[in-house]
């Protein structure tokens, strides 16, 4: 089969509503969205706390976050695998090779990006924002909330970046999800499998979807960045 034929078949699969293909896309979107929903509140809270408060160990936490940013997804996958395997600390949950395991793994993956970008976003808010809030009668918590609201566009950029990262990762999903058809097979693990089998049509079709999603994510990010920059 030539590349042209494979591409033609890929679009036929996509436009024909191939159930297996759309199931894979559904798994990807569901897992990545839920992972983000789990990771956003604690990560944004941590990024905000690191940007706002000085406390012993703060510097260590910032360095740790920055290190986690550079950690390969497969290493995070390995750590999660060891934690979730039968003899692991979380073995009793019986989550290995389930969507829950993928969600947990991707949430761990997204956490440092979200926290580090929130930290940077909050630090870049003008110092006068908190002062203005306080002088207009805001208490400590209300002033902090106002500062977070002022950083909202940059925090949305962080969330969009995090979504892009978890959607396109393969290492963690493969290791803790197991690439089980109809259950834990997502776009990236399916592309790897189909390509290794020489089934390029489905791989190309999923690749097209992934690129389209990446484009959508980046356009969304550019929109939020634009909103934040035109102040």
């Amino acid at each position, binding site marked *: 089969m030539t590349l042209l034929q494979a591409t033609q078949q890929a679009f036929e699969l996509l436009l024909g509503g191939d159930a297996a293909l759309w199931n894979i896309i559904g798994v990807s979107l569901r897992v990545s969205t839920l992972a983000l929903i789990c990771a956003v509140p604690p990560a944004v809270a941590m990024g905000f706390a690191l940007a706002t408060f000085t406390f012993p160990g703060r510097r260590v936490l910032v360095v740790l976050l920055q290190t986690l940013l550079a950690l390969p997804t497969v290493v995070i996958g390995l750590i999660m695998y060891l934690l979730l395997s039968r003899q692991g600390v979380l073995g009793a949950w019986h989550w290995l090779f389930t969507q829950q395991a993928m969600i947990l793994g991707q949430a761990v993956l997204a956490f440092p990006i979200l926290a580090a970008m929130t930290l940077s976003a909050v630090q870049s808010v003008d110092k006068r924002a908190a002062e203005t809030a306080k002088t*207009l009668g805001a208490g400590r918590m209300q002033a902090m909330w106002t500062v977070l609201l002022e950083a909202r566009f940059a925090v949305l950029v962080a969330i969009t970046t995090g979504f892009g990262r978890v959607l396109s990762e393969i290492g963690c999903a493969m290791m803790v999800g197991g690439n089980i058809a109809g259950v834990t097979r997502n776009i990236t693990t399916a592309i790897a499998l189909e390509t290794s089998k020489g089934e390029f049509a489905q791989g190309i079709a999923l690749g097209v979807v992934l690129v389209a999603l990446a484009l959508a994510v980046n356009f969304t990010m550019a929109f939020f960045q634009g909103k934040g920059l035109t102040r």
Partner: protein
Amino acid sequence: MNSIFSLQNLRKSHGERLLLNVEALEMLRGSTYLLLGENGVGKTTLLKIMAGLEAADNGNFQFDGQSVNNASERAALAPRLIYVHQHSYLFYTSVAENIGYGLKLRGIAKNERDQLVAAEMAWAGISHLRDVPPNQLSGGEKQRVAMARARVLKPELLLLDEPTANLDDAAREQVVELIAHMRDANNCVVIATHDKELSEMQDAVKLKLEDGRVQ
């Protein structure tokens, strides 16, 4: 008692440098004070210390007869005491929401808030800017919003840091009008300024800050 704010033995250093060393200062209701002095003499620092946005190294402070020695106690006086920055910061939301910010914090219902905000916008001549975000405002318009945002809260002591810097004549007049309005309502305004016209204002008490002391 006519005194709204007083301080004694205020000391503030930046590193080794003693920035402020003020023995005593008293501000009365219904008065306007002009804080004059070269750049870097500590005018902004003095206003921020009064507003509780910066802590002093030492000093006793009273507001309306009540002791407010800690910066947090002075900050808690807001919005009875309001500090307005030299380059006012507007929140990234509409003009109307900026003006209504303090009212919302005080739990004033939306209907009443909308009416108060509309009246302030009319006073400041910015009713047409109601839904405009701050990035689309000129420097003068931003200052008008900041003034309206402070005025709507009816502060008893208003601290203005270079309020006329880079303003056109109309916006400058509004600042002068706000000061007169505050004085007529028996409130107090303290203005740190370089503005020659403003520093020649009649009926204002001139305080010159030099070598950390108020002359």
